[in-house]
């Protein structure tokens, strides 16, 4: 479906609301709307200088944001997403995680239909078959957003997310003859990282891009540390994480887990050391239950735990229904925006 990228439609008061893609010069209106809708405090990362622009307009995969503005330029409603390049069975595509959807809390109830129209325009503008749009949109919504996403955007529940957790003292792993180099900056990952990841990802049917430029954008201003596991000079794994309050407890959250089987012990041992240095007593990560590492980490002392989150998604390409991604997409917490 082709729709104009800007149009005027009446809002709940009968005023003309302009529906259009969000532009870089909408920063002030967007942040005002964020403050009202999400009750952001002054220290929130999204309110830091440059953060909004970086999140929406410096993403190497592009911008996905559609909003309604009133005649004074105030943002009344928004549907947005964070796109990431992906490789699906050899095809280069883009997945988009739904984020930051909002309607003005003071005019929100009356704006229900406007919010729905923004959502439909977002889906129509950016979703599409491979080659025509983003074939897959997904997210981990809170309950209220889950209902909205289901009703307005056709999101389906794909997975009741479980975590893997392990007390630092219970880790059963050793580095063996592997070495781990620590980096605090994704841009400083070694020159052979991109080539190694392209080879590593071939074992999975679907993965997001994790080249240095993408990781540098994803982890800009993040306190995440990266551990590059090597054996006889060759990269054997990449693990990343940091201590944080997450899912109700302070823990060392592993956001990237891209590890060859022989490097698991070294990667776990590195994470345990980092956790201890950062004052966390538990390692914690999310992996698809079908992947080999889900079982392997349990062998190393991790245990499966419930989370508050449900993965939802919508496919825009009939070749692969939404649940295909639940069963084939190797995804980690770093693919989400849940832990900056």
């Amino acid at each position, binding site marked *: 479906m082709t729709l104009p990228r800007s149009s005027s439609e009446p809002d709940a008061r009968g005023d003309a609301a302009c529906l259009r893609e969000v532009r870089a010069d909408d920063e002030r209106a967007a942040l005002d709307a964020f403050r009202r809708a999400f009750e952001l405090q002054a220290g929130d990362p999204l309110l830091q200088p440059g953060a909004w622009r970086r999140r929406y307009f410096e993403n190497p995969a592009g911008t996905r944001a559609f909003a309604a503005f009133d005649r004074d330029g105030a943002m009344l409603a928004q549907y947005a997403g964070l796109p990431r390049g992906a490789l699906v069975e050899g095809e280069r595509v883009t997945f988009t995680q739904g984020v930051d959807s909002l309607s003005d809390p003071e005019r929100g109830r009356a704006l229900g239909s406007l919010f729905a129209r923004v959502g439909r325009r977002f889906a129509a503008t950016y979703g599409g078959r491979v080659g025509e749009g983003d074939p897959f949109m997904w997210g981990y919504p809170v*309950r209220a957003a*889950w*209902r909205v996403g289901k009703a307005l955007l056709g999101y*389906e*529940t*794909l*997975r*009741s997310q*479980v975590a893997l957790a392990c007390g630092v003292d219970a880790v059963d792993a050793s580095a063996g003859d592997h070495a781990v180099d620590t980096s605090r900056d994704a841009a400083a990952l070694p020159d052979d990282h991109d080539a190694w990841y392209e080879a590593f990802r071939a074992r999975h049917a679907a993965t997001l891009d994790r080249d240095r430029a993408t990781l540098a954008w994803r982890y800009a201003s993040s306190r995440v540390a990266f551990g590059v596991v090597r054996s006889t000079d060759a990269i054997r794994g990449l693990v990343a994480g940091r201590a944080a309050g997450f899912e109700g407890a302070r823990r060392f959250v592993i956001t990237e887990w891209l590890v060859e089987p022989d490097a698991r012990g070294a990667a776990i041992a590195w994470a345990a050391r980092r956790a201890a240095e950062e004052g966390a007593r538990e390692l914690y990560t999310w992996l698809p*239950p*079908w992947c080999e590492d*889900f*079982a392997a980490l*349990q062998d190393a002392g991790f*245990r*499966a*735990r*419930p989370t508050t989150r*449900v993965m939802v998604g919508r496919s825009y390409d009939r070749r692969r*229904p939404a*649940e295909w991604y*639940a069963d084939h997409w190797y995804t980690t917490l770093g693919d989400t925006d849940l832990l900056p």
Partner: protein
Amino acid sequence: MTDLERRPRELVLRPLDPARDVPSLLETWAAVFGERRSAGEWSRRFLDNPAGLRAFVACDGDRVVAQYAGVPSRVWIDGEEHRFVQSVDSLVHPDYRAGLKRPGLFVRLAREYFAHYGGPRRAGGGDATAGDTIHYGWPLEAAWRVGKRFLSYERVREELVLVRELGATPSAPATDCAVEELRPGDLAPGADGDEIRWLWERALGAWGASAVRDAAYYRWRCAPQGDARYRLLGARDAAGTLRGLAVLRDGERLAPGARALVDWMVPADDEDAARALDAAARAAARADGGARLLAWLPDRSPDFAAFQDRGWRVRPTPYRLAARSFDRRFDALFLREHWWATLADSDLA
């Protein structure tokens, strides 16, 4: 006029009448599944269910040519009794599957079935014939696609299984409970009441929704069916109090070398009863020739963590739990977070 053009117009879709439809239904069953089911087996599964009967049929004259059916259970939610119904044994005779009209007979029949049985809970919750809150199941791929598109099926979760590899026969742990085998046919409320219902009320705790598990439930659920034989293990303390209950199904189930722990009912804080039953269940499964024991428990229950602490590990399964809610309060997220469901709530074991 061809057969295919004639048939849809003449089919009658209505609730199954056990008095006249069963022989024809079983003939169609045999034609669809290539095996015979006896009237006795059908009766035990459907008519003897204390929670009622759910079956809709399509009839060509006196002949049953399709069925959409379910197995209901009485589910307790916040002090109210509801009915949840697992969809099972849906079938369409091969002669009636083809046709140019969409949706086909399966969907038409299912829609009539849901319209008849699904809906707001009736006052008092005692109506055993309609007003079901949830219909659910673990559909195969083809049925899932049809259900999602035409019947408002929604995915609740993909099932995870707890697996315990069975090594040497475990010795009985030192606990204050002894484990005994209960005979399903003998289960009945005693002079002091129904001790199984009491156990269920203690085990339910803060868990939000659960099928009522009492003597009548297990007498029906664990009666021999076909080749299925169940073993009920009860943990009882020196005072004679029933502290826990586990149900095993004999014979391989769900995976090579696997035996199924069909049900588990132990209050979350009763570690002694849990350890005693866990060891007894493993010993029984091993004695039955099993290499591993499998259980389904909700990941948000305390038992999910406790089982792992006792050596069970979590693995994926190909099964997805799908549901259709007829009450907005009890949507897929509610089921995910609050419904105590085990293999006993399914027909998979």
